[in-house]
């Protein structure tokens, strides 16, 4: 019984299943926009409540957790912005489309989060060193527990959707929500410990949270940075294309396959070798066919450029 349930879950969430079945793309985009909005709302509400309660209730850890939510807001905005604009057609000025906006958002947001968290951690450590820690209010505890549940729900949905849609921004958003759950639970523990007499528990939890946030930020940042560097997609992917293309009768040899991600899309550059006597009209037919073939194989394939070379 359990295995059946597991496999069903895997099918729903596995990128492979999403990649090859005939899903309604529009419905998927709508769903990702919805998750973006929900994540945004939870982020805004969470950050406002946590920071206000954190300041009033004198809990540095809750403020830190609120900062973590703040970063969610930006990453949720990136999802909305990305899904809206990545779909925008390429213009004469931006001939390769707007897919990379997601990566740019990731690098900017990730970099800032790392910086902000370091500042927060340092001030917490100074507090511990100077013994200037104040007793947090009990209300902080309830806020933390409630926000852990809210973020847990958002994480569940956005994680699954990110895999289905292959959207890096959505993945980053899910990552954030996971960190938020852990951080909210830690805040609750910290408050109880501080009230029980361990004066350093609250700022120490704030520092721990900082480590969490920095880790998440580095992942987001690095993802975006690699995308901006035009790093190739994994080798399996290009090898798969190579195998598919070389199976065609007209193609004598596949000389090179390059693929780079641009937001949710993947741009493919192919170079194939054919019979030198083939006419340009015939070669155009082959090119059009190859484009259709690759797009049918994976709906994330964006623009495909095919170079037809005479076989040597």
């Amino acid at each position, binding site marked *: 019984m359990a295995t059946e349930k597991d496999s069903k879950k895997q099918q729903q969430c596995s990128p492979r299943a999403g990649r090859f079945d005939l899903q309604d793309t529009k419905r998927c985009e709508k769903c990702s926009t919805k998750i973006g909005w929900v994540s945004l709302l939870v982020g805004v509400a969470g950050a406002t409540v946590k920071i206000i309660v954190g300041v009033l209730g004198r809990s540095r850890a809750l403020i830190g957790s609120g900062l973590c939510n703040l970063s969610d807001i930006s990453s949720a905005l990136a999802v909305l912005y990305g899904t809206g604009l990545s779909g925008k057609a390429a213009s004469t000025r931006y001939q390769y489309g707007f897919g990379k906006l997601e990566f740019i958002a990731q690098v*900017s947001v990730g970099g800032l989060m790392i910086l902000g968290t370091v500042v927060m951690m340092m001030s917490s450590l100074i507090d511990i060193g100077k013994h200037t820690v104040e007793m947090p209010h009990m209300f902080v505890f309830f806020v933390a527990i409630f926000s852990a549940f809210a973020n847990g729900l958002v994480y569940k949905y956005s994680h699954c959707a990110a895999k289905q849609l292959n959207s890096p921004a959505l993945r980053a958003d899910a990552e954030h929500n996971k960190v938020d759950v852990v951080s909210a639970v830690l805040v609750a523990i910290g408050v109880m410990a501080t009230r029980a007499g361990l004066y350093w528990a609250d700022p120490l939890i704030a520092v721990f949270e900082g480590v969490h946030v920095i880790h998440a930020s580095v992942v987001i940042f690095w993802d975006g940075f690699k995308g901006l560097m035009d790093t190739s997609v994994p080798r399996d992917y290009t090898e798969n294309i190579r195998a598919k293309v070389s199976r065609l009768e007209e193609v004598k040899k596949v000389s090179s396959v390059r693929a780079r991600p641009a937001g949710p899309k993947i741009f493919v550059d192919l170079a194939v070798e054919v019979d030198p006597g083939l006419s*340009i009209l015939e070669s155009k037919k082959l090119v059009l066919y190859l484009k259709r073939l690759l797009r049918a194989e994976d709906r994330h394939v964006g623009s495909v450029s095919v170079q037809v070379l005479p076989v040597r």
Partner: protein
Amino acid sequence: MEQKCIDCGKRVPWVIFFGNTILSAFQIFVGLISGSKGLVADGAHSGADVVAALMMMISLNISGREDDETHPWGHGKIEFASALLIYTILVVLAIVLLIDAGEAIISGHVKPPHMAAFVAGVVAVFLNYVLSSYGFCAGNQLNSPSMIANANENRSDMLSSIAVVLGILGANMGFPILDSVAAVLVALIIFRTGLRLWIQAFRNLLDESLPFEKVKLIKDFILQYQAVKDISFLKTRRVGQTVWADIELVVSPKMSVLEGHAVAREVRLALIRRFRHIKEAVVTCTCNENPLTPKIVRGLMREKLASTVKQHAKTAVASN
């Protein structure tokens, strides 16, 4: 060039780099102790230049590497990606300084800074002048535009340092608000520079095409070839200091692939020779005639359907 000059060319950037590092640390230190917001902002200004210069040195080093398996389009984009990061931080830094100084002005809680800040400000003006003159002189001798641009940067730093010195002086002469006003001014300068350079990096990362006139120039150059009837698309994008292009030429449909390739190759080599910024151009040939008769389209649809049905069967089997 003489060996002496080459050695000098290598030494000058480092001298300027270390000069700016020491200057920025000195300004921030004295600014914090003496309570001069203007001096701290000015120190942050020079410090930002230093960090930017350092990151550029590192990324230029990586940018020059040849393309490898994981980076089939080369490493040039790192210049823009690192610039995006630096200038994001710089813009936020400017906002923080702006809020800090603005708050002091609005609340009116301003104290005139200690006169030590004045001395440090004068030293900063003098050092910036020396460094920029040194840079201008060496840059002109060695004919290096980047060195001259750097010297210009130091010259503008000198102007902001002068504003800060005036602010400190004014603050001690009975207008304590002037130091914060100078800080706001410097923060605005940082903000403006940061935002401008951020947008520049942003555009290059989004693969913005070359300016219209340059694209027109390239198109006209290609259309000189007799075999080329038209250009169906010409995409350009910047990768570091170089430009990469994707071009599709329209040729006669009866031409063979061998002939078409010869044309494409000639165009590619000529482009790389003629426009020195173009590092790589992927040139392909096509024709205006449509090879896909309705019958072929129907065939393609069938094949696509068959492949998806097969995939569905596979996933169904896997899930069982």
